């Protein structure tokens, strides 16, 4: 079975431009999350979507937006790019959303794609 797939794998943009990153989750997974990983740091949470609804948003400006489609794929959009937006953008899918009520199991376990590496010049 295919894992989480992301496109494009690499891209270069200039300041002020806009970018759209795409993610296809593992078949059967209904939740998609987006994380930003700056070089030398751990991933930072941006968004989670479940069943096409936003379930959570991290501490990112409104320039960042996302959506989930009926087939559970997702797009992350970043407007008015800044140099500081240069990072690896990771998409992760899970069968369901994480919650303590799920009998201490990891049905909310996140499976990460290989990421889209964005360079802003």
């Amino acid at each position: 079975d295919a894992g989480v797939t992301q496109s494009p794998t690499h891209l270069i943009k200039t300041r002020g431009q806009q970018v759209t990153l795409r993610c296809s989750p593992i078949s059967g997974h209904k939740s998609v999350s987006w994380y930003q990983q700056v070089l030398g740091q751990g991933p930072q949470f941006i968004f989670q979507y479940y069943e096409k609804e936003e379930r959570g948003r991290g501490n990112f400006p409104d320039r960042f937006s996302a959506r989930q489609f009926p087939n559970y794929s997702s797009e992350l959009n970043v407007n008015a790019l800044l140099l500081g937006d240069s990072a690896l953008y990771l998409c992760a899918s899970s069968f369901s959303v994480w919650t303590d009520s799920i009998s201490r199991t990891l049905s909310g376990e996140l499976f990460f794609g290989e990421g889209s590496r964005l360079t802003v010049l």
Partner: protein
Amino acid sequence: QKEVEQDPGPLSVPEGAIVSLNCTYSNSAFQYFMWYRQYSRKGPELLMYTYSSGNKEDGRFTAQVDKSSKYISLFIRDSQPSDSATYLCATANDYKLSFGAGTTVTVRA
């Protein structure tokens, strides 16, 4: 204050050594604790998770959580060159994971 603090290293050990990795976290409400492994230019993959305090063992890997001191540990026994990677600790809270900065480990053959 970051939710999860992790020494970024780097850490270099000879093959066969025990690797010890540590993190601290700030929110006592956290209940789930994970360790992810990330190879260069790849996404993170889940190694192990624990619920609340205690130990969990999986082959050469042992994860420990001490909630009284808010301390998370990962031990790798009989380390192999293939264990060379960045190891990320994380806590789960509702809809998101909070990651440490990651520790880069190199196991020398």
